[in-house]
């Protein structure tokens, strides 16, 4: 059961951590879903071409920089609305990957690896834990991390002291591009295939997890773990509880929202108590 919880939460944690870095820089990356799709496709395309798993993941991480740079080009250089750019990235990824799939592999459907993706069961969890440590240390123990957070909260201060805001926002986008792309790559390699719709809304859930975790790495880790716990319980409940499976499928979302509202209310009450 613990393994199930870690499996359920790690991928979301990995995506959410990158999204968190971008969010803390002042750009909410709505395009995570598209980044995942790109990563999933690139990883499988590389493996089909004979690239070993680790090298495929490394190149997939680099591939994640491309949509992030595109995002930055529109949102930071050309001042397009970041929400619209994020949505456009999602649409673009959903449209371009089938086109690339058709051109390179002759199919718009699934691309399968006959022997599996070559990554182990724990690859996602290990990567997510490493990413959590790196993001936490990066945001709170380094000067660029401090400036990135200031870019999101007091950009005028940063500008007044001669440091560019947008370079840190671009850094945030690039980090989110790398993590979401690696997450997409790990997802497809673990499945052993690229499939249409492979991201399955994980980019959106990751955005929710960022706020459930109060925009802090450890909080995001706890929120992802909680979501994974409830999801694993819902999966197990299908086998042991006499409730229609379709009802149980909604459980993770209902419980997570309920928990979030309860925790927010408790926290607000706690803060209002006189000292």
């Amino acid at each position: 059961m613990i393994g199930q919880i870690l499996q359920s939460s790690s991928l979301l944690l990995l995506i959410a951590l990158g999204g968190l870095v971008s969010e803390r820089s002042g750009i909410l990356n709505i395009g995570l879903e598209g980044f995942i799709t790109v990563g999933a496709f690139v990883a499988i395309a590389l493996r089909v071409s004979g690239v070993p798993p680790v090298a495929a993941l490394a190149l997939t991480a680099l591939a994640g920089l491309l949509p992030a740079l595109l995002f930055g080009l529109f949102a930071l250089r050309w001042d397009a609305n970041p929400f619209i750019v994020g949505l456009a990235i999602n649409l673009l990824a959903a449209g371009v990957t089938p086109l690339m799939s058709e051109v390179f592999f002759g199919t718009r459907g699934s691309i399968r690896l006959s022997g599996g993706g070559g990554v182990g069961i724990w690859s996602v969890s290990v990567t997510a834990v490493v990413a959590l440590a790196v993001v936490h240390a990066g945001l709170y123990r380094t000067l660029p991390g401090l400036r990135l957070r200031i870019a999101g909260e007091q950009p005028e201060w940063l500008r007044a002291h001669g440091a560019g805001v947008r370079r840190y926002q671009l850094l945030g986008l690039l980090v989110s591009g790398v993590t979401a792309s690696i997450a997409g790559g790990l997802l497809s390699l673990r499945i052993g295939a690229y499939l249409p719709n492979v991201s399955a809304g994980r980019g959106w859930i990751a955005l929710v997890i960022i706020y459930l975790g109060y925009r802090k790495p450890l909080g995001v880790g706890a929120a992802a773990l909680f979501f994974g716990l409830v999801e694993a319980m819902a999966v197990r409940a299908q086998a042991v509880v006499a409730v229609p499976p379709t009802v149980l499928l909604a459980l993770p979302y209902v419980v997570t929202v309920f928990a979030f509202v309860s925790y927010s209310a408790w926290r607000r009450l706690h803060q209002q108590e006189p000292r």
Partner: protein
Amino acid sequence: MRYTDVPRYDDGMKTFTAVVFAVLLACMSATSLVAAGRPEPAPPAGSYRIGVFVPGVVDGSPTYEMLVRGVRQGAQEHSNVTVTVVEGGFNQSTWEESLTSMAASRRYDLIVTSNPSMPQLAEAVAAVVPDVQFLIMDGHLTGNERIHTILFNQREQAFLSGYFAGLVTTSGMPGANNRRRIGLLAGQEYPIMNEVILVGYREGAHRVDPQIAVDFRVLGNWFDAGQAQEIAADMMTLGSDVILTIAGGGNQGVVSAARERGTYVLWYDDTGYDEAPGIVVGSSLVRQDNATYHATVAAIRGEIPWGTATILGVADDAVGFDLEHPEFLAAVPPHLVGEMEAILHELRTGQVTLEMPIPGQ
């Protein structure tokens, strides 16, 4: 305070941004053009024009590949028949509109499609668009003089899958454990799944051993292979050593979980042994290409009994189990192959009868 440092657009920049987005959208449109297939030449005068409406996309869907193949085979035997394939995409809410447009275009005498939800949609379209006839595979409807449906006996098909799963879980095959437990993962719950497939699967397993437990789970969609992998892993943790997967794109997740844990997967509707040799060890079949071919030829010849519904099963050679694939023969002990041949013979000769219940009736 966030986002307040973003300066206002100027008109030139707006125009530039709009142009760049237009180029990006044009790239996406190219995908749609690929999806729509290549335009076919105008049919000759007096021809019989068949449109195949695919509620989804053809690529990656064996069911729809068989549908298109069956229609094309039937049409090839007649010089005056044209076939155009139209893909409706994955958004089910747009299918009725797409089907209506197709029927109202006056470019088709017959529309062939396949999906349990299509009879109701076709009936709605037939009420507002005259003349066009509908041949619907894998659906059931009677009483509409412009619609003929062909339903496959999925109780027999699921029975075969369940029987084989029962044989595997009670066998000494390397991936089988000592627990008598098998799994069924469905993409979603729907009447045929709950009332026919699950029932038939359980009947088949219990014919081998009434003590076999069936772990039934639902993915909630037809594409999330990652979630399917996690559900399948949980089923295996609880003791299922063989899982029948009917979850569309989610099937790949079940295969992946079985590969990691050394258990088995059963395929449904088409031969799946090449998907993962040694892991996919059984495939129950619906020979939709054969059935569609025969129905298309009958429609061209004017021999379809419109307004009626047909149910085809093992005895009609429309439902079966692939016992001949080399990967199957390599993975499965000969005595289990013999058991499957025997049960198929009993279904074919009527020694075992499994009537297909009509969903919702």
